[in-house]
């Protein structure tokens, strides 16, 4: 849950007086609130946690982190279907997946 994922700002708009952005996380696109980083611009990268941009990040390190997370399946953990994951955990042995990799 404490995972914070770097993403790239695709566009920015004002909604109900709140600065919101569409952000790309290596292919997964999410709505993100920019109230804590109001001067973030389109094309820039930031660390995003549960739908909020919390700190700027340079492009190079953002890309490296995203690649790593994608490789490790961590983007799936963060953005995947939590009900499916919980059901799998409650019913099947998650070890099988890990050790068959």
């Amino acid at each position, binding site marked *: 849950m404490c995972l914070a994922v770097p993403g790239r700002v695709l566009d920015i708009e004002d909604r109900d007086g709140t600065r919101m952005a569409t952000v790309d996380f290596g292919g997964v696109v999410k709505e993100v*609130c920019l109230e804590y980083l109001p001067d973030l611009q389109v094309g820039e990268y930031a660390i995003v946690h549960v*739908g909020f941009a919390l*700190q700027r990040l340079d492009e190079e390190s953002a890309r490296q982190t995203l690649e*790593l997370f994608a490789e490790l399946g961590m983007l799936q953990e963060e953005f995947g279907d939590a009900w499916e994951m919980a059901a799998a955990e409650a019913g099947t042995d998650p070890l099988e997946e*890990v*050790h068959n990799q």
Partner: protein
Amino acid sequence: MKYIDEFQDPELARRLLDDIHATVTRPWALMEVCGGQTHSIIRHGIDQLLPEQLELIHGPGCPVCVTPLEVIDKALEIASRPEVIFCSFGDMLRVPGTGRDLFQVRGEGGDVRVVYSPLDALRIAQQNPDREVVFFGIGFETTAPPNAMTVHQARKLGVRNFSMLVSHVRVPPAIEAIMSSPSCRVQGFLAAGHVCSVMGVEEYPELAERFRVPIVVTGFEPLDILEGVRRAVRQLERGEHTVDNAYARAVRPEGNPAARAMLEDVFEVTDRAWRGIGVIPGSGWRLSSKYRDHDAEHRFPVDGIRTEEPAECRSGEVLQGLLKPHECEAFGTLCTPRTPLGATMVSSEGACAAYYLYRRLDMPATKTREATPVV
């Protein structure tokens, strides 16, 4: 060294490791505070690549794990009410309360929904004005600002059917509690990088000075952890104890001032019980009285809840670094991710889950070393 090829930059990993091996001359015990770091360490076998004399003690930085049982039971109670839509992050679904979890509550007909962001819960409230929408607001300083902003917005927009069950926790008082314990073996800390992205580093120099421990702000990717460890052992070997930032690409000294200002407005510091550990003074945030209308504990009658922690579960000791998960008798037998006795076995950041996922099969090879004497 079977894992080193899997590092993103094996060459750099090798250099950092060589440096650490060359630096360490004595036994040291470092605590990584953040559960994300624990997972990274176990997943990549970082502890096995480090010098024999250097022990990594896993800290209590898993928000899901330390949320008190009483609060989980309150959540289950509220989520069972017919008028309620209960929204939560996904990793709370299988955290065991007294006898059941949110996953089961939904099976019994409760309207439990998983959201990616607390703002999603606020939107659900706006779309369902005739229902009570409750968001489960837990987490450390990284998660608190998003939750704070959401309550602030609910108030601003007049979304009266939105409330939050808040159980936030703060890292610095936990470090203080760990260092003050007579059984403490920790000689240095890797502080949680993303907590510091928000809070900055100003809270730490006083702790480093008072307890004479180096505190190194560290990210949670494998190379970040090696760099954090490298800087911490260098200080230890030199007899230094300062605050150092090994995660400068995401942490500024002042943190995120806008987020800190919002935290100040929405929350107030309170004593908080940590699951398995007990009350740590000043270690939590609750909604300030200004936001009482959006406080789920005031809106629902959840006062008289009695909780019961399974006697076998030793997660309190695990969370304080006094016990490694596989040293718990229930580990892998009575307690598995499918039948968890404690929250540390289900959370994606829990130490017991990390050991079960990545270490269960080769456990004999990872027997814990003897306790490191405090120098």
